[in-house]
């Protein structure tokens, strides 16, 4: 008896799923060749369509060199850097909901993440450690590219773009460093920006531009907040777009050693 009911429920569920999966809505969402489409079969043509008929085509070609797929060649460091950037964007947006960039509120807002926001502590930790990881993975990615000689023609300019991306990563991390507005943030930024003051001729102006004042003050926090959540992400996304585009246009991943 019970078995019969279960069979019937299974049958019903299957037929409902078949209807939904084959419906016009599902058909319109999934482009031809999507692995989630009804009746997908694992053929060379469909394997090509998965990329070609997809937004992924902006990032990946249909085919890649066989040696480039080996984990031991790239260690996936560039991909990990990009993924960490996405992860930092997601956690960063979450943090923005609970943070006010003023000298009065900043510190208590960050402290409140640990005490009165669901998963607040976890997300803040992920944002902080993820940022450190990103600096590390971008640096390791650069080293991997160097040791493979992958900056050689025709990839010279993409190396330059990559160095700019490393600089932007450091700037993103550094501008975020101030935002908790604790002793660590204040004095680390003081030390860091003092170095900028040693720039010849217009060192003072550079420092003033960075801090919005001659020293780190309450005004600096707003300035760095805007740089951190808006300006540098905007710039780095543009350079990342160029970087990824050039990877493909310069002939994909570099050759084997």
């Amino acid at each position, binding site marked *: 008896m019970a078995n019969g009911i279960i069979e019937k429920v299974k049958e019903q569920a299957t037929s409902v799923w078949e209807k939904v999966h084959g419906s016009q809505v599902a058909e319109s969402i999934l482009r031809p060749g999507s692995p989630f489409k009804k009746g997908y079969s694992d053929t060379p043509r469909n394997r090509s369509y998965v990329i070609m008929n997809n937004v992924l085509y902006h990032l990946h070609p249909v085919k890649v*060199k066989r040696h480039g797929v080996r984990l031991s060649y790239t260690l996936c460091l560039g991909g990990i850097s990009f993924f960490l950037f996405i*992860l930092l964007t997601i956690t960063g947006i979450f943090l923005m909901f609970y943070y006010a960039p003023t000298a009065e509120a900043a510190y208590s807002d960050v402290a409140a993440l640990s005490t009165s926001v669901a998963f607040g502590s*976890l997300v803040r930790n992920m944002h902080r450690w993820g940022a450190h990881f990103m600096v590390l993975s971008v640096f390791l990615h650069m080293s991997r590219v160097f*040791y493979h000689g992958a900056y*050689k023609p025709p990839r010279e300019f993409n*190396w330059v773009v990559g160095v700019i991306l490393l600089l932007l990563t450091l700037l993103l991390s550094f501008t975020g460093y101030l935002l908790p507005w604790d002793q660590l943030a204040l004095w680390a930024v003081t*030390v860091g920006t003092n*170095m900028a003051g040693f720039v010849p001729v217009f060192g003072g102006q550079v420092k003033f531009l960075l801090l919005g004042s001659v020293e780190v003050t309450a005004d600096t926090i707003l300035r760095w907040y805007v740089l951190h959540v808006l300006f540098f992400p905007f710039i780095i996304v543009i350079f990342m777009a160029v970087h990824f585009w050039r990877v493909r246009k310069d002939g994909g991943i570099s050759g084997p050693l």
Partner: protein
Amino acid sequence: MSDIPEHLLRRSAEAKAKALGIPVEDVLAEMTGEAAPTPMDIGEQPKVETVVAPDPATPAAVPVAEPETPSQEPTPPAPVMAASSADAGDVDYDAAATKAGMPASLLKRSVEAKAKASGASPASVLAEMLGEEVPAAPPAASAPPPAEPAPVEEITESVAEVVEIPIVEPAAAASVAAEPPAASRSGGATAVAARPLAQPEAVPEGVRTQRLLTVVKANAIQQVKSEPTDKVNTWPHLMIMEFAALLAVTAVLIVLSVILQAPLLESANFNATPNPSKAPWYFLGLQELLSYFDPQIAGVTVPTIIGLVGFMAIPYVDRNPSTKPSDRKFAIFMYTFFMMGAATLTIFGVLFRGPGFNFTYPWADGIFFDDLKDWVNF
């Protein structure tokens, strides 16, 4: 041919042998240039003909086709106007425009340009253009000059891309073939039309036959420079790896974030300078340098000249084209040297600097690095 990797050549030969139904060895021999190329079998024994544009100025020279000749190539009907006005010199564009249903000025410009390009007189060009549009003229009334059968070997060797169109019915095919082939005039690619020997009528309904419409040389479309390489589909081979890496990074980051609390010290206080004050770890190498050198050097020259400009210039300074590690020992040494230097300075700054940024042993006095504060106490 010899620069193609063996396994790629083998794979290609196997596919071709399978498609043509001939032994692999024959294909391999042909590919490596040891044997004459096999004529490509398209459709059912195609007869290759060159479509030659009829000369409208001499319609009398066109032989009348035998009605039952199967290989007859329908062409533009012999223009009636051509015989009468070809030598007249002046061309009546207004009348022609009315006939063609388009503005006289446009027709004139088109005819003159075409006449200039082909070297024929404007009148004959006009006649040809109009002649095609006369629906009353039966295609069977004229036949092309005997087509020169092109040598099959020559053509198949230059085949890069075969444009195939299905034959729907003879009349439609005739209108397609009747287009004056511009390519044959400009001396570019050879346009050939191969038709099956069997009559199209014999093809059962619902079966679509193919015919070779044109043969375009490879270098006319694109210049292929790249060497053949072994490639795999991005999906699934690469994307599975990327997805695995993505999951691994997320998992590691979540686990780390659960067990390791990000530092949060007391609220910022301008009047209480901590001792020591340290920059973020990635700038600590520079801060370490600052304790040895003048700020102009350690704070400005090193980071901008070496750190930025120097790194960006690497591809333009290193002119060695080889990527083999054994060929670029100096470059690898230099990079490793600088990286080891930076790492040493950073580790020094993180672990071995205590109050007043003086040297300490971390095992004796503890670590003065607040980023790791909770890690150390864990």
